[in-house]
């Protein structure tokens, strides 16, 4: 099978995306298209077979608030079990939240039902992590990408669907002739393109991408990232981009939220988070990322965290990170640190961004 990937970059190195500006202009802080307030999802834990009783709850997401602005990419990073994928499912309506609000264009979509909910869902689509299991092996590519039209027939009348699917294949860099092929005939990168085409079918405004490139090889990963960025410009999309790969998130995101054990630890622009992190967890996370530069081996001030992430069924009181934090004091066990700009950092340049830590400060041994 001849691949015809388009995002190959130019032979002479990376080319600017927007010729005039040189560097892609940051999304102007326009209106918030999505406002998340105190979002929580608790999965009940049951014991007993006949007389089931609830013995607790896994607090996968526990009070998360953020905004998504039109045309921007919000990156959510965190380790496994921090709840980032649950946030994704809540945003697209695959899970019902235990508490909180998801306001889309000012309206709380959790309260909606029936036709109104369906209309909203059309505008928030998802791209999944695993291109191997998220495509039905018994359906042709044409049927997979066209399936959203069965649910939302108003978007494309029956006669025009094949043509629309062909256009979508072309948009994501696949040969439209492949419309009758099955998923197993494609490589991982091509399958992820199919998943992206399906996400685009209904012309959504928001795409929630949950680890869209983590299953792909490095050389293919860059192709898919380029595709996502091109599509964002072309269709004026807003992305919620969830990943554990910090360098990928930095590359694609305008703003970044760091998640730990069901809560946000720190939010800010990519520069604020990566260059001026003030939350100890963010600092440890960034310092642990292996840098593809052997010269950096010695001069990195690496923070090695002790232990593992606690169970979300029984999270620590107060600050959730305190059990692994080297700065923890008594207050950390008693008072939940709010996600606000610490008062001693208000107006303090790039360090002045929301950080949920009682002792937020920049690293003194900042790496050069």
């Amino acid at each position, binding site marked *: 099978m001849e691949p015809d*990937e388009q995002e190959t970059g130019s032979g002479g*190195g990376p080319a600017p995306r927007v010729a005039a500006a040189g560097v892609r202009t940051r999304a102007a802080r326009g209106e918030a298209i999505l406002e998340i307030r105190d979002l929580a999802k608790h999965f009940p834990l049951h014991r007993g077979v006949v007389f089931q009783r609830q013995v607790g709850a896994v607090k996968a997401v526990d009070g998360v608030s953020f905004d998504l602005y039109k045309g921007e990419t919000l990156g959510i990073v965190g380790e496994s079990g921090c709840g980032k994928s649950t946030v994704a499912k809540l945003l697209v309506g695959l899970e019902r939240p235990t508490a909180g609000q998801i306001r889309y264009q000012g309206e709380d979509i959790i309260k909606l039902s029936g036709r109104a909910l369906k209309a909203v869902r059309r505008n928030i689509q998802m791209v999944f992590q695993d291109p191997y299991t998220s495509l039905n092996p018994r359906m042709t590519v044409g049927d997979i990408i066209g399936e959203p039209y069965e649910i939302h027939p108003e978007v494309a009348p029956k006669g025009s669907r094949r043509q629309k699917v062909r256009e979508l294949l072309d948009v994501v860099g696949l040969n439209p002739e492949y419309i009758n092929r099955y998923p197993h005939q494609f490589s991982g990168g091509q399958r992820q393109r199919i998943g992206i085409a399906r996400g685009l079918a209904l012309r959504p405004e928001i795409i929630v991408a949950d680890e869209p490139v983590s299953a792909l*090889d490095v*050389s293919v990963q860059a192709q898919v990232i380029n595709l996502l960025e091109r599509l964002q410009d072309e269709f004026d999309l807003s992305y919620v981009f969830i990943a554990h790969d910090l*360098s990928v998130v930095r590359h694609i995101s305008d703003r970044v939220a760091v998640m730990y054990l069901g809560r946000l630890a720190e939010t800010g622009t990519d520069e604020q988070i990566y260059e001026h992190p003030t939350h100890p967890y963010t600092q440890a996370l960034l310092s642990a990322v*292996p840098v593809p530069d052997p010269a950096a081996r010695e001069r990195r001030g690496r923070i090695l965290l002790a232990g593992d992430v606690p169970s979300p069924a029984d999270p620590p009181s107060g600050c959730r990170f305190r059990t692994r934090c080297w700065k923890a004091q008594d207050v950390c066990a008693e008072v939940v640190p709010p996600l606000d700009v610490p008062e001693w950092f208000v107006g303090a340049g790039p360090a002045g961004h929301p950080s949920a830590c009682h002792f937020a400060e920049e690293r003194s041994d900042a790496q050069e």
Partner: protein
Amino acid sequence: MTTTPEPKLLDVRDLKVEFRTRDGIAKAVNGVTYQVAAGQTLAVLGESGSGKSVTAQAVMGILDTPPGFVTGGEIFFQGRDLLTLGREERRKVRGAKMAMIFQDALSSLNPVLSVGAQLGEMYQVHRGLSRKAARGKAVELMERVGIPAAAARVGDFPHQFSGGMRQRIMIAMALALEPELIIADEPTTALDVTVQAQVMDLLAQLQREFHMGLILITHDLGVVADVADTIAVMYAGRIVETAPVHQLYRAPAHPYTRGLLDSIPRLDQKGRTLYAIKGLPPNLTAIPPGCPFNPRCPLAQDVCRTDLPPLYEAGPGRASACHFWKETLGGAR
């Protein structure tokens, strides 16, 4: 390749492995040559299907046969060609002299045996210790790899440990008989970055302590930069470049290596199109003639489509399987 006077711990020469499948013969390894000295870390870098894991399986002697067959080459370990040894002799080498750490600790450990029993088994089988003495050794090992409350947890089952702790148990098991060579196949890929840092630190520290040779198989350019001495980059079952780690990152001598390094998102590329290697890795049942990388290579000329490049010596201690290695080294893209 370079020739060094000191005898190498492991010396793999022109190894070839193929898988005979219904869809044809997949040539997974097509003439791989590498050496590892005691106390040295060789990183084998490659994408899925590059043959990096299959090479390691052939070295360990745990290739699934059929469908996999070693069809050529030699594997010298401490001067003996492992491929000429009988089953029993091979078995004595495996585990005692060379050990392997797998990616997925949960599926590599036996779920119905306690970790103590699995660790102790090594001593019972290879050293003939009693069950009780073996259990004592197991506790010692678990302490070695930093498992808290080892004596209390020796009877626990694999599922009762976290991912990072399970990987520590895998490392403990590999270390049990103090082997001379450890092969770690994507040891931290399934782990989170903060835990990955802990595990890589442990591995490096134990390697120094026991002066073991380490083969680290990975696709992660960051992990490699952190720990390796030498790197071998594999593509379509061949080594396309070997070099000391600093030199490889500073100036790659093969266009594939350069492409991999260029496709990592870097700070100064924010907001720009990432460099991406065009196309896909080749199908191993139909590897293109000439240089296997030629359909994806920005420097490809006619000669690349017809002649397979040998591993050219490209400076002290480094080699590149590219007809245009000089140009690549000089910065051509």
